[in-house]
């Protein structure tokens, strides 16, 4: 049995669900939107056993061979719900998370592996160890150190250190007054690296690369700022593709969305690795069979 965790409105999850249905794969959909109808029981001892029950449908947890996660927090999924319903949804999330930590099923991706993305500079250190160039970075509460860093690199960007509010922006003179606020919390600055953005999805050993044409500092938000974005499928050079596979493997991520930038000099910089990539955005533009590849990974666990 393959268990999917998330909501129907999540596009990547819907795409994987469709791909599994096309292959007649056995699927149990643990729909977070139906938390109010869901019961979950888990026994952890010499064996891990349990059952999830949604209305009349049930799934024995020991029969689950693979899990695909796209879950969100109960708080964000259930705005305006009464306290009791919210508490039940939170308890359910906690229970599922506990089970995912002890199950022998293949989990795509495990929370422990996904967590590296919660600290951008930490993940960047891991990326550098895997052989990619990473931008010069300063995380600081020291205004003079930031000014010196800015002077050295000419153009720099700032972005969240964590995964929250993580929008990339170029530092400009308009920010000079606000710069004093960094004394309250270490803030991340990076040298600006010019070049073309490339998103690489690593699915097992398969590589799907997409070249992004946009003038925005952060192309994900380009359309919002009136800057059009165009996505095109790209064949990566073999050595770069191999580095992407090695990086995903080093981070223990069977599915990864790797953000690269190729400089005009041909050097490949890696900015971050998204452990739960919203691949459907790229797939819709390039028609790369990413959902099918993820379904294949899940079904391989079902067969083994």
């Amino acid at each position, binding site marked *: 049995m393959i268990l999917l965790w998330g909501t129907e409105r999540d596009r990547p999850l819907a795409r994987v669900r469709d791909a599994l249905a096309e292959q007649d794969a056995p699927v149990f959909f643990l729909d977070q939107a139906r938390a109010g109808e869901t*019961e979950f029981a*888990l026994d*952890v001892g010499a064996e891990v056993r349990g059952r999830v029950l949604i209305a009349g449908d049930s799934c024995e947890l020991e029969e689950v061979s693979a899990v695909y996660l796209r879950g969100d927090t109960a708080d964000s999924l259930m705005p305006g719900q009464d306290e009791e319903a919210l508490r039940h949804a939170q308890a359910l999330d906690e229970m599922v998370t506990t089970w995912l930590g*002890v199950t022998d099923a293949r989990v795509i991706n495990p929370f422990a592996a996904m967590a590296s993305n919660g600290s951008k500079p930490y993940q960047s*250190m891991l990326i550098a160890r895997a052989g990619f160039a990473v931008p010069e970075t300063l995380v600081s509460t*020291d205004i003079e150190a930031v000014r010196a860093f800015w002077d050295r690199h000419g153009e720099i960007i700032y972005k969240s250190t964590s995964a929250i*509010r993580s929008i990339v922006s170029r530092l400009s003179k308009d920010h000079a007054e606000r710069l004093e606020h960094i004394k309250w*919390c270490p803030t991340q600055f990076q040298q600006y690296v010019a070049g073309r953005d490339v998103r690489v999805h690593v699915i097992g050993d398969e590589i799907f690369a997409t070249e992004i044409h946009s003038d925005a500092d952060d192309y994900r938000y380009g359309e919002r700022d009136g800057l059009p974005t165009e996505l095109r499928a790209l064949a990566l050079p073999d050595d770069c593709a191999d580095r992407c596979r090695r990086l995903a493997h080093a981070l223990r991520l069977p599915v990864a969305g790797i953000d690269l930038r190729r400089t005009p000099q041909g050097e490949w910089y890696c900015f971050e690795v998204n452990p739960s990539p919203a691949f459907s955005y790229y797939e819709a533009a390039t028609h790369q069979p990413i959902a099918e590849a993820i379904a294949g990974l899940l079904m391989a666990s079902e067969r083994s």
Partner: protein
Amino acid sequence: MNAFFVVIASRTDAAAAHFAAGAGSLVRMMTPADLSQPGWSLHFPGTGPSTAVIAGEPVASGTIAGVLTRLPAVTEHDLPHIIAADRAYVAVEMTAFLLAWLTSLSCPLVNRPSAQCLSGPHWREAQWIRAANRLGIPAVPAMLGTRRTRPVHDEGEDGTTSVVVIGRQHVGTADPVLVAHAHALADAAGVELLSVRFDGEGPSARFVAASMWPDLDDAGVSDAVLRLMRSRAAAHGDLREVG
């Protein structure tokens, strides 16, 4: 400047403060409030000095001989000096920064942080029980459910016994089987500091729970932690000037 150890702890962690005060100049306590001081700089890859602010004083990160991390993550409660609307965000940002800063240090870290927890692996109770079972250690099973019909287990400490693992040493029960079990669990989790609780004193006692935050108010524990920090730093060559 003499080398020194840093204890990272919540401002409300009285045991950590007591531990640091008792060790004199050898140990300095850092709280999340120190992260709201000018002077922090973490450069990578490899250019520029890395500086920290410990107990209000700027220091070169390279002068730190070892770190004891008592803080799983920075929380809003640690940040009364930050305006309320920004506290949750700043707490997450500071946690992310601390993980990177700790990872950048070459000195010994007790316990080494994971991406999910600054004090070691973020294992839930069920994961400790699973690890115990995989190691062949008898364990009280966990029965969890959104509709609880049975208790998970006796949460009280009556009738239980503890072994605190501190490196290759331990504090607590002398039963060698339980001591070996506690060390095996610490090794499996990749931690040097672990408090392990069993449901009895004899060799057949079952594993109940584990914690990466043993009681530093226990003099035996705090002395052993300090010895561990000294020996790890000496092995690393960082305690040349510490008496």
